[in-house]
């Protein structure tokens, strides 16, 4: 199941050039860009891991594309997204957030029924991927054999 979330969730995956154009739009507006990755794509999981620090004062999108490619090389089997933060006084929120990379195989979600009082049912979704421990959820493929990237960037502890 192809997971979608964020600003361009209804579109096919963006090409590198389209990513660069979106990022350039954000930079032209003076938004700060950050790159995040995760292997827990639940829609309510807001705490993705940071890839390096947020990037301020950029002028050209090629720097962001460069970092995205670095992150892809280190984590080919994770979800990677780009966030643009608008720091202006009355906004102060994420202005743009979209997925730029996804694992080869996405197992999707199952529906879980929970019994509640009075025979009521509560439903929730559960990603199949999170049945496995962090770091092994989308399989070990090239470059992802070790959970920690080179030079110890990102914050995910070894597991």
């Amino acid at each position, binding site marked *: 199941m192809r997971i979608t979330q964020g600003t361009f969730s209804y579109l096919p995956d963006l090409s590198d050039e389209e990513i660069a*154009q979106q990022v350039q739009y954000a930079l*032209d507006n003076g938004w700060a860009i950050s790159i995040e990755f995760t292997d827990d794509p639940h829609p309510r999981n807001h705490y993705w891991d940071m890839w390096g620090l947020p990037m301020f004062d950029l002028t050209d999108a090629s720097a962001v594309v*460069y970092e995205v490619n670095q992150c892809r090389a280190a984590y080919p089997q994770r979800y990677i997204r780009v966030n643009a933060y608008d720091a202006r006084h009355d906004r102060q929120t994420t202005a743009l957030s979209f997925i730029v990379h996804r694992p080869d195989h996405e197992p999707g979600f199952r529906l879980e029924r929970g019994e509640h009082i009075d025979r009521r049912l509560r439903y929730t979704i559960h990603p199949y991927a999170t049945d496995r421990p962090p770091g092994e959820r989308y399989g070990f493929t090239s470059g992802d054999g070790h959970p920690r990237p080179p030079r110890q960037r990102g914050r995910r502890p070894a597991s």
Partner: protein
Amino acid sequence: MTGTRVRRASAAGGRRPRPCLRTDAVLGTDVLLETDAVADHDLSSTAMTSGSRTPPRGFRMPTPGRPHPEPPAPEPGTAEAAASPDSADPPLPPDATVDLAAERQASGIDEILDTLDRELVGLQQVKTRIREIAALLLVDRVRRRFRLTSSRPSLHMSFTGSPGTGKTTVALRMAELLHRLGCIERGHLVAVTRDDLVGQYVGHTAPKTKEVLKRAMGGVLFIDEAYYLYRAENERDYGQEAIEILLQVMENERDNLVVILAGYKDRMESFFASNPGISSRIAHHLHFADYSLDELMAIARLMLDRDNYRLSGAAEQTFREYLARRMRQPRFANARSVRNALERARLRHANRLLAASGRTWSRDDLMRFEPEDFLASRVFTGGV
């Protein structure tokens, strides 16, 4: 602007529509999305609608009460038009001919080269080299239209010369020039020194250097006094780490970044001698010669013109004498010394006018330097 609107959402107050996507933007080649966020920043100016500056990139949301902006037509010779000649034009047939003069006109490089000639005195060698580089890049662009592929020329440069010979100024012009020729996307100049690249503790240098490099991408990175990066006497100095990252990015991101190293000639030479990797990656070594006395006088005249001052006939003689003496003294910084001398002359000039009581001054008096404005200098009284 007839694309189907896919989504529209309004922020608080409905004033600022969020990024909104049009299908033509996705399928077409143009950049998309421009919200009113930009317009909010410069409501004070009418630039958005009057077209007095280059139009913003991309589409804009139609907003009630605001004139509907036309999508900016890509100007010939801008980076957008130049960056993707392959996708934009069909290849020219082998027997076609091109008019290089027209190409040159369209690229707008003459304007920059002329400014360079006008604003910079002397420096013949440097100017010739810049013209050569510009010619090469222009011809390369035309060759690409015939599908004559060649490797992108290396554009990293080193500027050597004494202080005040115009290295930074030329670097600024160079950024603009490369931008017009479509070699770099933005054409901004990021000027840094050792402090901005080298960290203070273990593990600090790499992120710091990378951040600077990312900031400079799409433009020119100007490293002033680059030889400070390498300190031969301390082998554990973090500068070495910065140099390694710099080398790697200079090699891999050649299309996005042009690096210019600047500094005094002798020290740059020993820097290159101890870092052969850097020297071999720099294609253009430009030397900025010291100015002669006549050139310094021409520079002074340019500076005075810009600030609406002038020298009286006698003052011109005095100033010439002043420069001749100053050139023989230590710490002479060419054009920068000229500027400082003129700044001090302005002080004395103002003081002289104020001190003389009981008379009125004409417009010309307010513009004219007299010999006594220079004679009070320590250069004439024997000090340094």
